[in-house]
């Protein structure tokens, strides 16, 4: 909790106000039964109507005051806890924005979503509970016990018996229930995951006519969880009878001992009014103990959530910003000098090892290689999405680690392999590349990326709304929009990581020829599966197992590289080969 308290910020004030209001409310609340006892004793003793009226009016005023304080505390504590939650969410989100790729790889996106929603809600509820009761409950408890002893004397020995019993009982219940619940919730998550799996794979389920099998599987899991859940709930269910036993014990004790005392001392030590007050205080004490045990449970239960949130907040970005950053990227040359790279410190083998590569500004470089040959790893070092483990990567002759990150990434535009569009209009999506782009500029990049014809064919043109995940455009259209988005940055280096795989060969070729025509100075790195996408590059690199196995132009590689020849033959004559 302490780690998160920093997120309170502007909501410290409502928190403090809540505490003040609650203390005031608690004081009045404990005074009310005291004066009420007076009033009842008075009525019994037959005091004057005036006195009754005065006491009554005082009581009503107190109740009104208590209402105001209570209501105000309700508002401020809601404000404090909701605001607290808002700030935590905002801090976590901002922290994730500062993450480097390496950090992003460590957290799955669904776990980040849970942390920012369910976990934060848990903390919010625990915090609300805490500020509402953490002060009030002990205060009321102490006050009630003291008052009970002052008023009741010997009658208060009842509390000496029930308080330890109740505390012990509640703790016992909480201690048994919490691990049980934790285990259940973990299972519950698993169950929900399996439902999600089922929903996602419904075509497979139905395709194999496995509905009955799935039902049986789910039924078993549900039954299993039901048994565990019931066990946990049944432990908690002992709370109310335990509470009730204590209340009843107090009742009987006070009535029995009380009436004995009244009669023995002739009503001189305690009176009937005291008995009813003792019953009230007894109730009060028990309720407060119950509240405290609830706070205890909630805080412990939210401990897990706090831990998970803190994990994100404590995560340090693995990229260090340089002290005197360079803001200008001179040209589009790229140099790899003795570069090795691994995704994590304890990875067994390097994703890239000893790469030496020099690319002149304005060159077109094609990169080929099988799955897992680290083509993507290679290009991701250029916009400094990751830092090289050894060696240096330079852009425009300067080590990438010396650049201001935003300036570097502004000049190195990359179309990722796993690319995506965001929900919003096409215009909004394209403008990720340049916030202030005019429609003319949009037209231009769309023309280069061969996206203009289909965008124009949509009734709403640039205002066409893209659904979440870009589900309403085809794969090829998505890729072309992504290229257009990157072009809008007017970068010195453009990296396409398998970005035209869903685009047909003719359009692919058109895009490349447009590149040549309109952005000749831009260095272009193209990772592709199709050999036709890279054949006419100035330099073709063949990656294999994390290192460059061959490099050269098409003609050179046809002579020197057997892998290249193999790929070429497969793709150009492909079919004849497999028909044999």
């Amino acid at each position, binding site marked *: 909790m302490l780690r998160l308290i920093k997120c309170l910020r502007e909501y410290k004030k409502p928190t403090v106000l809540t505490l003040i209001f609650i203390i005031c409310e608690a004081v009045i609340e404990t005074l009310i039964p005291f004066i009420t006892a007076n009033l009842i004793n008075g009525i019994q003793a037959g005091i004057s109507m005036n006195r009754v009226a005065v006491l009554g009016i005082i009581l009503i005023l107190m109740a009104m005051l208590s209402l105001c304080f209570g209501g105000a505390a309700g508002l401020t504590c809601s404000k404090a806890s909701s605001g607290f939650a808002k700030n935590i969410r905002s801090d976590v989100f901002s922290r994730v924005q500062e993450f480097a790729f390496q950090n992003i790889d460590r957290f799955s996106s669904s776990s980040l979503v849970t942390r920012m929603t369910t976990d934060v809600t848990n903390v919010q509820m625990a915090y609300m509970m805490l500020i509402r009761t953490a002060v009030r409950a002990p205060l009321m408890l102490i006050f009630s016990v003291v008052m009970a002893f002052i008023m009741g004397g010997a009658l208060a020995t009842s509390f000496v018996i029930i308080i330890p019993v109740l505390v012990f009982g509640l703790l016992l219940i909480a201690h048994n229930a919490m691990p049980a619940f934790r285990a259940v919730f973990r299972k519950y998550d698993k169950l929900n995951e399996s439902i999600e799996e089922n929903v996602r794979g419904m075509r497979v389920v139905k395709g194999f006519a496995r509905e009955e099998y799935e039902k049986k599987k789910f039924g078993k899991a549900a039954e299993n969880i039901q048994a565990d859940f019931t066990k946990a*709930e049944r432990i908690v269910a002992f709370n109310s009878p335990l509470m009730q036993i204590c209340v009843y014990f107090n009742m009987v004790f006070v009535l029995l001992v009380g009436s004995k005392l009244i009669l023995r001392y002739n009503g001189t030590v305690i009176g009937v009014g005291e008995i009813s007050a003792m019953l009230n205080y007894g109730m009060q004490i028990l309720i407060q103990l119950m509240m405290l045990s609830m706070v205890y449970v909630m805080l412990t239960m939210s401990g897990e959530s706090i831990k998970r949130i803190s994990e994100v907040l404590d995560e340090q970005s693995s990229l260090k910003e340089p002290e005197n950053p360079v803001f200008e990227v001179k040209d589009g040359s790229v140099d790899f000098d003795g570069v090795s790279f691994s995704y994590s410190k304890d990875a067994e083998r390097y994703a890239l090892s000893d790469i030496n590569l020099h690319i002149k500004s304005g060159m077109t470089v094609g990169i080929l290689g099988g799955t897992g040959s680290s083509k993507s790893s290679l290009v991701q070092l250029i916009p400094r999405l990751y830092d090289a483990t050894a060696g240096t990567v330079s852009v425009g002759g300067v080590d990438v680690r010396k650049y201001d990150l935003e300036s570097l990434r502004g000049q190195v535009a990359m179309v990722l392999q796993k690319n995506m569009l965001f929900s919003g209009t096409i215009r909004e999506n394209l403008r990720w590349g340049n916030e202030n782009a005019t429609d003319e500029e949009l037209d231009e990049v769309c023309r280069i990326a061969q996206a203009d014809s289909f965008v124009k064919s949509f009734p709403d043109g640039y205002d066409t709304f893209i659904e979440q995940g870009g589900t309403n455009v085809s794969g090829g259209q998505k890729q072309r929009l992504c290229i257009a988005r990157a072009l809008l940055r007017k970068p010195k280096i453009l990296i396409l990581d398998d970005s035209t795989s869903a685009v047909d060969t003719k359009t692919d070729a058109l895009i490349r020829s447009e590149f040549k025509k309109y952005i000749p100075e831009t260095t272009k790195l193209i990772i592709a599966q199709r050999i036709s996408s890279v054949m006419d590059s100035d330099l073709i690199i063949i990656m294999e197992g994390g290192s460059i196995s061959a490099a050269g132009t098409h003609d050179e590689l046809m002579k020197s590289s057997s892998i290249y020849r193999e790929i070429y033959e497969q793709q150009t004559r492909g079919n004849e080969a497999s028909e044999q």
Partner: protein
Amino acid sequence: MKKKNKNNIPDSPKPKSGISIHTFRRIIKILYESYPRLIPFTAFCIVFSAIVNAIPSIFVQKILAVVTECLSDGVSSGAVGIEWSEASGKIIPLIIVLIVLYILSIISMTIYTQLMAFITQGFLSKLRCRMFDGMQNLPIGYFDTHKHGDIMSYYTNDIDTLRQLVSQSLPQLLQSIVIVASVLGIMLWYSIWMTLIVAVGVAAMIFVSGKIGGSSAKYFIRQQRSIGSTEGYIQEMMNGQKVIKVFSHEKKAKEGFEEINDRLYQDSYKAHAYANALGPIIMNIGNILYVMSAMLGGIFILSKIPNISVSCIAAGTIGVLSVDILVPFLSMTKQFTGNVNQLSQQINSIVMGLAGAERIFSLMDEAPETDEGYVTLVNAKLGENGEITETPEHTGTWAWKHPHSDGTITYTLLRGDVRMTDVDFGYVPGKDVLHDVSVYAEPGQKIAFVGATGAGKTTITNLINRFYDIADGKIRYDGINVSKIKKADLRRSLGIVLQDTNLFTGTVMDNIRYGNLNATDEQCRAAAELAGADDFIRRLPKGYDTELSNNGANLSQGQRQLIAIARAAVADPPVMILDEATSSIDTRTEAIVSRGMDKLMEGRTVFVIAHRLSTVMNSDVIMVLDHGRIIERGNHDKLIADKGTYYQLYTGAFELE
């Protein structure tokens, strides 16, 4: 007010009481059906414990009356220290009755709280299973038109709200109603005037709870929706985090988040503010009511106003309000208002629970996939003269069992002959995506579909396995109209491999066996070998026993596709549908697995959809689709010779969009 419009959230639908009551009755009905004996028993325990809870105030009053009486007697007689033994004769029996009542109350309470824990979980489990079972029977169209996140929230959020409703609010409701009713009865027994005063106060409390509680519930429902949209935003941003980084778009993403986050804060704040303020307000109205009753009672006593009560009416006398009536009356007032307060605290969970239940019921009420099929797939034995007889054991030969209206049964050998004739179809009425499509696939043929995204390739396969039903035309499988075949049997005879591979949590072996639950380990391995997956599976840390989770996140997309192919292969269906099944396998690997694939396809009717022409070139028939129409058909050589669209595609002169 200004803020409100900016929020852009439609006002929550006014809770229509008619629907809510209907929902409420349905919950009770399911509860009752699940536990026809336990529910009445539990309800009895709750009612009993509530009554026993209310009665002691009578005894407290009686004991106090005895004490007061003895005390005044003693004082008047001048004795110092009245003997306890004198009073104990009257007090002890009362206390014993009290203790007995208390013990009964505790026993019934223990029983019903334990039973409620049991019933709640049983009910939820049953509901979950009903939802899940119902969901398995829904047509695929339901899943295509509903977001998965929304479906999931039925199982998580909505079930959770129901847990609260059933385990706490319902017993509380019943208990409070009983206590309020019995306390009201006792009050009337003592004094009608005083009861009227309490009634006025309680009416005020109910009015206030309704107002504030209603607003609170409204904002809680809004909060729920805000959480949903926040979750959606976070999800999208987290998924696209790398793109955000590449475009240095962090600031914009934060700005967008702040806006949505603030909206959630506003709703959450209001929802809790109303809920939190309600408690103290109700409690203090209770306090005021208590004081008012004490004061007015005092005035009644002092001014000796005649007391009208049920007890007096029954006795036919008119009494006077006395202190020993007033004191217990006051504690009853406390009890009364305490219960109203507790009820008011349940308003939120009741409203939210009912809203959740309504959504759950809407899922359960979705119309299931219809299946009027009566032709089934059976194991068969071929006689010497080619006659087919049905056998219970597995023979490797299958036949369609076709009962006719005249009582005769004919058997047709399962061969894998699929014919579509003049099929029209649209997902939305009036918007056809397929026009006049005819496809003839003879057993063992490989049929390929080529065409732009949205041309209708996948739609055709959706119709063959009846994920969707055709609007017009005919589809025949081995000469039988597919609408006459039981869906499960039809689908059993078709193996599908889809572009988006879905694997399930479990071992690799489990996943392959999904295609045929009776397959032995050897058969699964053989299928994997056929699919070209055996090689990489062996290299996994635990080989075939490697656990997959999260849709096989630890495998590459290409590897997942290979497992999916193995899964289809182990089912050994006569017809296979490969929808972009090898799209993520790079061309080099594809070339390596192609021999296995060819073997897999041998002797089967195969429908192939592929983007890569190299995958489809060796097909017997290639169909080129455009806007739901087949514009060219023939084998590779014929289509090339025709120099049509396929030729243009092949030479790269035409684009596939």
